[in-house]
C-alpha cells in the first residue's frame, strides 16, 4: 500500500468539492433523516410537551450519567432502584473526557448541558468522518472507498447514537486520529490522541494492540524488542495509558478506590470476566433480543476477517481484541452500538463492495433502512435501541 500524499498542485476548491462537500452532505442528510424519523415516531406515539422534543429524545440510556457528570462532577452517590437504576450504579462508571468537553461547551449553549452534549457529539462525528476518510486514503485506497466508508458510518444501524450525548462520537474521532497519525509516523500527535482516547473509555487502551502489531509488521519483531533503537515509534504506545491512569489517580484521591470504575461496573452493571464462549452460548440459547445481539456480534467478527484478506493485520488485531473484550464482559447487550466504532471493518467492507456500485448502493440502502427502524425504536425508548 502506498501512503496517500495530499496533492500539492490541486486547488483548495477542488479538495473542498471532492471531499468536504460529500462528507458534510452525508453527515447532514443522515442526521436529518434519522432525526425526522425519530421525531415523527415520537409525535405519532402520542408524546406531548417536553417529552415530544427532539433534544430530550436524544438523551437515552447512559446520556443522563454523562450530563450529570458534566453538570455536577463525580459522586459516590447511588441513585438506586427509586430512580430506575440498579444498586451500585454511580457516576464512576463513566470516564471523564467526554463530560469534561461537554462542560466546556455548556456556557456556549447558554448553560444548556443537553444541547452542549448534542453539539459536541455531532461535531466529533463530523470530524471523525474526515479522519476516517483520510485514514482510508492513507491506506492507499481510492476516494470511492473513503466516501463509501463514511457513508456506511452515517447510515449504520444505530448511528443515531453518534448524534446523541454519548461518547461514541468522540471515541471514534480519537481512535481514527490516533491510528491515522500513527500510520503517518506523526508519533507525538498519535500519542496525544491515544492518551485522550483512554480518557474517554478504558477500551481505548486497545490502541496499543494496533500500534504494536503495526510496528512488528513494519519493522519486524527484533526491532520492536529493541525499542531504544527507535524510541520515537513507541511514544504513542507509552502515552496511550496516560489518560486512564490520570482517571485512576483522580478516583483514588476522590474515593480511596483507584478502581472505582471497575467497582461500580462489577456491582452496578454486572461486569465480570467470563470466557467468551460461555457468554455467547448463554446468549444464543436465551431466545430473546440477546440472541440476536450475539448473532450480530458473530457476523461482525466474521466481517473482520476481510481485514486479514487485505493485509490489514494491525487493524484486524485491534478489532478482534475489541470484540473479544465485549464477549468476555457482561455480554453483548446492544445490537449495533459496539460495532459502529470499529471503522477498520467497515473500510474492508467498503473496499469489497466499492467495485460494485449496485452492491454498494444496496448495502447502504439496507443499512439505512435498519438504521431508520432503530431510530424509531430509539425515539420510543425500546430496548432494541440500547
Amino acid at each position, binding site marked *: 500500500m502506498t501512503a496517500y500524499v495530499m496533492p500539492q498542485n490541486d486547488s483548495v476548491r477542488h479538495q473542498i468539492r471532492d471531499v468536504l462537500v460529500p462528507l458534510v452532505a452525508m453527515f447532514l442528510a443522515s442526521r436529518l433523516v434519522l432525526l425526522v424519523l425519530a421525531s415523527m415516531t415520537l409525535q405519532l406515539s402520542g408524546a406531548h410537551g417536553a417529552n415530544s422534543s427532539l433534544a430530550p429524545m436524544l438523551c437515552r440510556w447512559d446520556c443522563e450519567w454523562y450530563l450529570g457528570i458534566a453538570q455536577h462532577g463525580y459522586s*459516590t452517590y*447511588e441513585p438506586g*432502584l427509586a430512580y430506575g437504576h*440498579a*444498586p*451500585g450504579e*454511580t457516576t*464512576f462508571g463513566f470516564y471523564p473526557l467526554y463530560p469534561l468537553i461537554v462542560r466546556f461547551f455548556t456556557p456556549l449553549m447558554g448553560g444548556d448541558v443537553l444541547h452542549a452534549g448534542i453539539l459536541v457529539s455531532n461535531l466529533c462525528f463530523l470530524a471523525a468522518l474526515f479522519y476516517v476518510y483520510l485514514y482510508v486514503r492513507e491506506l492507499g485506497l481510492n476516494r470511492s472507498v473513503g466516501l463509501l466508508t463514511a457513508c456506511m458510518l452515517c447510515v449504520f444501524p444505530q448511528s443515531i447514537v453518534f448524534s446523541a450525548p454519548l461518547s461514541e462520537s468522540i471515541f471514534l474521532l480519537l481512535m481514527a486520529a490516533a491510528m491515522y497519525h500513527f500510520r503517518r509516523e506523526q508519533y507525538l500527535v498519535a500519542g496525544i490522541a491515544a492518551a485522550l482516547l483512554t480518557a474517554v473509555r478504558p477500551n481505548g487502551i486497545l490502541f496499543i494492540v494496533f500500534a504494536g502489531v503495526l510496528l512488528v509488521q513494519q519493522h519486524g519483531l527484533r526491532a520492536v524488542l529493541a*525499542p*531504544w*533503537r*527507535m*524510541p*520515537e515509534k*513507541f*511514544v504513542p504506545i*507509552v*502515552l496511550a*495509558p*496516560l489518560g486512564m*491512569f490520570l482517571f*485512576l*489517580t483522580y478516583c*483514588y484521591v476522590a*474515593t*480511596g*478506590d*483507584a*478502581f*472505582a470504575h471497575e*467497582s*461500580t461496573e*462489577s*456491582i*452496578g*452493571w*454486572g*461486569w*465480570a*470476566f*467470563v470466557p467468551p464462549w*460461555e*457468554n455467547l452460548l*448463554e446468549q444464543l440459547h436465551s431466545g430473546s433480543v*440477546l440472541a440476536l445481539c450475539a448473532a450480530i456480534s458473530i457476523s461482525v467478527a466474521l466481517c473482520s476477517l476481510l481485514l486479514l484478506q487485505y493485509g490489514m493485520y494491525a487493524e484486524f488485531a485491534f478489532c478482534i481484541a475489541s470484540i473479544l473484550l465485549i464477549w468476555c464482559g*457482561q*455480554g453483548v*447487550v446492544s445490537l449495533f452500538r459496539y460495532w459502529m466504532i470499529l471503522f477498520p471493518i467497515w473500510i474492508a467492507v467498503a473496499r469489497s463492495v466499492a467495485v460494485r456500485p449496485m452492491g454498494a448502493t444496496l448495502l447502504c440502502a439496507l443499512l439505512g433502512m435498519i438504521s431508520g427502524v432503530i431510530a424509531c425504536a430509539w425515539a420510543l425508548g425500546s430496548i432494541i435501541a440500547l
Partner: protein
Amino acid sequence: MGTGIDHRAVKPSAARRWTSFAALLALGVGYIAAYLFFSAHSQNFLVVQRNGRAMAFGETHPATSPITWQFGQNSPDNARLGSGWLAAPSYPGVRLLTQDGWIVFVTGRPDTDMLLRLDALVLTTQAVPRNTIEVSINGTSLGSWQRGGADAREPIEVRVPRSLVADGQWHVRVHVDHIGSIFGRDTGAARNGQDLLLLAIGLRRADSSNEPAR
C-alpha cells in the same frame, strides 16, 4: 585523513534517542509503580460506603445477645446489611446479588463464644447442584458449607470465638461460589446484563446466641 563522517552530528542523535528512550522507560515504570500502589491501597468504595453506613447504624443501635433479625422488604433490620444485598418485593428476605455480602453490627463485649445462625435459601441450578458458602468474621474464615437440593434451606450455623469479636464489632462476610438466576439459568460468575432476579442466597433471618460451654 577524515572519513567524511561528522561524529558530532552522530552523537546528538544517539543521545537524543537514549534520552527519549529513558523518558519513555520512566513513564512506563511510573505506570507500573502507580498500578502496584493503587492495587495495594485501594478498597472497593461501594463496599466501604455501604458497610460504613451499616456500621454507623450499628454504633447508634447496638445489639444485645440474643439477637434476632428479620430481613426483607421494608424491614428495619435491613440497616444492618452492608454491601451486596437487595430487598425486592417479589421475593421474601434479601437477595445476595454478588459473590460477597456483608452484615455489619455492634454488640457489647461477649463473655462467651457465640453462635451465629443464618436462615438462608441457597440457590442452585442444574449445572451447579451444590453451592458453597463461606462465612468470615472480621477477616477470619470460620468455615464453609455446601448446600443445595434437599438441604438448600438448612440454616448455616457459625461458631464465633469471642476473641474474634472482643471489641463488639462484627463484620460478617458471606461468600458464595456461584450466582444464578432465580429462574434456574446458570450464569457462572457473571450477572447477565442487569438481571436483578439473580441471587446467590436469599437471607431471611440472622440469630445469635451464646454458645454453650464445651
